[in-house]
């Protein structure tokens, strides 16, 4: 795929026209400026976006957000809207880390009041939060507890005193979705998740202590409880081994039924089944359970973060809590209703590395935010910045209420390891006033700032395209990596 295959719609929008490949059912749409487009053409992201336009029932466009890059199956940053009545659900298009997502916690503290303690805080986070490769967590689940987690998600964790109802009130879906059925998730998946609840995981998962440095929309920032100079904490994690196994199970289980249903897709990883079929319904039920596990996991991680912050800053923070600003899922399938050809139509929205971005007035948004839109949490990288955005009314029309989920990688992990040494990166960031601690030097190098796209540029495209709007920017002060 090259640039001449794409049609420029406006400064921030490009399309792969219908007919570019024989299998396409709708155009592919990419929100990008010219530089991001060039970057996306540098790997196989646009080809992967085009492949997702082949899924039965896909409507209007398959989409890619400006943080797009090559994945497996769909691109990372992909959104695939599919009609529920005659369309499919695809485990591969949802990804292995079901409900990988982000939670943002806000303190009532100004960073300046605690700056001398930041390194100690990072060390405490590293101790309090089980993080790295293959480490189990403090909470080991028996079968009854596992059932509670898979049914109730974050609410299960809150019922065990790992948080408050304020946390679930400010979590997408209230931290749990309906529709899980126990037989939908294999014993293997449950076993893979039974000692990982409350663990960060490795790869790009992290906890970051940050400072709010810019406010772009004072009224919305105030509604979200954000102010300049404020200490905040970002948490990025997902459904751990349980979610990975659920996806593995269903990608396998769907291979034969897909043939039986006569469905052909351009990439086997896009394996799918009709949403209404027994296979489709079983995957949806399993996906819901895994999503609930992820919300329980981020709830436990938030609890550990609070313990670490209290441990280091008790004299300064007293009993004042860290409040949840919001918690978003960015690898998930959602049932949402949109206008298609002028008619309200139930859709299956696959978001793979994309964040829901409901605009003002949507009843799914917490009442405190309903006038301003849903918080859209966009972590950047450990050396530059992250953003809080808000959903817009027009995002429903433009992107099925979706926006970016991060900066997006620009460089492979092996290239990052060749260019960056973990120890040097840690030292370089320390000179910038950012304390970074990771389980391995290689893991740190893989996540170096230069491995990511320019988050300012990605967010600028999102803002100018109108799919979400800028509210606040934070910069990192300390990061722990799994």
């Amino acid at each position, binding site marked *: 795929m090259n640039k001449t295959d794409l049609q420029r719609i406006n400064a921030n929008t490009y399309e792969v026209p219908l007919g570019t490949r024989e299998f396409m059912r709708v155009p592919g749409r990419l929100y990008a400026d010219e530089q991001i487009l060039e970057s996306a053409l540098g790997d196989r992201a646009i080809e992967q976006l085009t492949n997702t336009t082949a899924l039965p029932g896909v409507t209007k466009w398959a989409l890619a957000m400006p943080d797009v890059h*090559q994945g*497996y199956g769909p691109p990372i940053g992909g959104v695939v809207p599919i009609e529920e009545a005659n369309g499919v659900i695809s485990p591969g298009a949802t990804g292995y880390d079901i409900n990988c997502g982000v939670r943002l916690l806000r303190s009532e503290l100004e960073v300046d009041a605690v700056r001398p303690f930041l390194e100690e805080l990072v060390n405490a986070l590293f101790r309090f939060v089980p993080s790295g490769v293959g480490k189990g967590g403090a909470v080991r689940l028996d079968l009854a507890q596992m059932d509670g987690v898979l049914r109730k998600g974050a609410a299960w964790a809150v019922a065990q005193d790992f948080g408050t109802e304020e946390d679930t009130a400010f979590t997408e879906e209230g931290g749990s979705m309906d529709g899980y059925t126990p037989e939908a998730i294999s014993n293997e998946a449950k076993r893979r998740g039974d000692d990982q609840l409350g663990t960060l995981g490795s790869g790009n998962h992290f906890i970051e202590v940050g400072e709010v440095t810019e406010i772009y929309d004072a009224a919305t920032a105030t509604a979200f409880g954000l102010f300049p100079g404020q200490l905040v904490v970002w948490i990025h994690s997902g459904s751990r*081994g349980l979610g990975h196994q659920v*996806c593995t199970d269903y*990608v*396998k289980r769907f*291979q034969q039924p897909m043939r039986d249903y006569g469905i052909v897709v351009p990439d086997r990883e896009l*394996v799918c089944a009709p949403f209404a079929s027994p296979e489709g319904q079983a995957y949806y039920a399993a996906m819901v359970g895994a999503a609930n596990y992820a919300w329980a996991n981020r709830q436990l991680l938030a609890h550990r973060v609070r313990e670490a912050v209290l441990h280091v800053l008790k004299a300064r923070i007293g009993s004042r809590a860290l409040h949840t600003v919001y918690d978003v899922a960015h690898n998930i399938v959602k049932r949402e209703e949109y206008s298609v050809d002028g008619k309200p139509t139930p859709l299956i929205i696959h978001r793979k590395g994309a964040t829901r971005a409901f605009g003002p007035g949507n009843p799914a948004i917490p009442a405190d935010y309903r006038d301003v839109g849903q918080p859209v949490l966009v972590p950047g990288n450990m050396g530059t910045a992250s953003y809080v955005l808000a959903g817009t009314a027009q995002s429903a029309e433009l992107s099925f209420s979706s926006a970016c989920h991060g900066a997006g990688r620009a*460089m492979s*992990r092996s290239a990052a390891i060749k260019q960056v040494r973990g120890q040097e990166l840690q030292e370089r960031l320390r000179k910038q006033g950012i304390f970074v601690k990771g389980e391995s030097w290689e893991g740190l190098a893989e996540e170096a700032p230069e491995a990511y796209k320019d988050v300012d540029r990605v967010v600028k495209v999102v803002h100018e395209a109108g799919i979400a709007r800028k509210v606040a920017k934070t910069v990192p002060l300390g990061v722990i990596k799994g």
Partner: protein
Amino acid sequence: MDSPNSYERIEHTADLAIRVWGPDLPALFINAASALFEMMSRPPLEDDLAREVVVEAPDSEALFVDWLNHLIYLHEVEHETYTRFAIVELTIDTLRAMVYGGKTLQKTKTIKAATYHDLAFHQTADGYETVVVFDV
């Protein structure tokens, strides 16, 4: 371990991709499993542990992915690392193998899954090769 010249890492923006080859299909399966464990873990101190692995799938490429995913599963829940592999039976839809290794000493990378992305066996002058993309 098998010869390190049985696979190579190839560029992938976000995840981990390898090209793996072997003189025949059983060797391809074994070389991919060796590559997987070289990436995930340091060799165990002992290799006196043996396990039978049986996988069934609709075709041999699906069998290949399922084999790798089953090994990822065992590595994660049993905390075991395998260094030797013997294919007992390989048909179009069934794989029976013995895997040998020991308790995991140190994990080096978490691999979430082997994917079906770009999956195709290619016959070459020297046997078979394929690309496999792992989610990390």
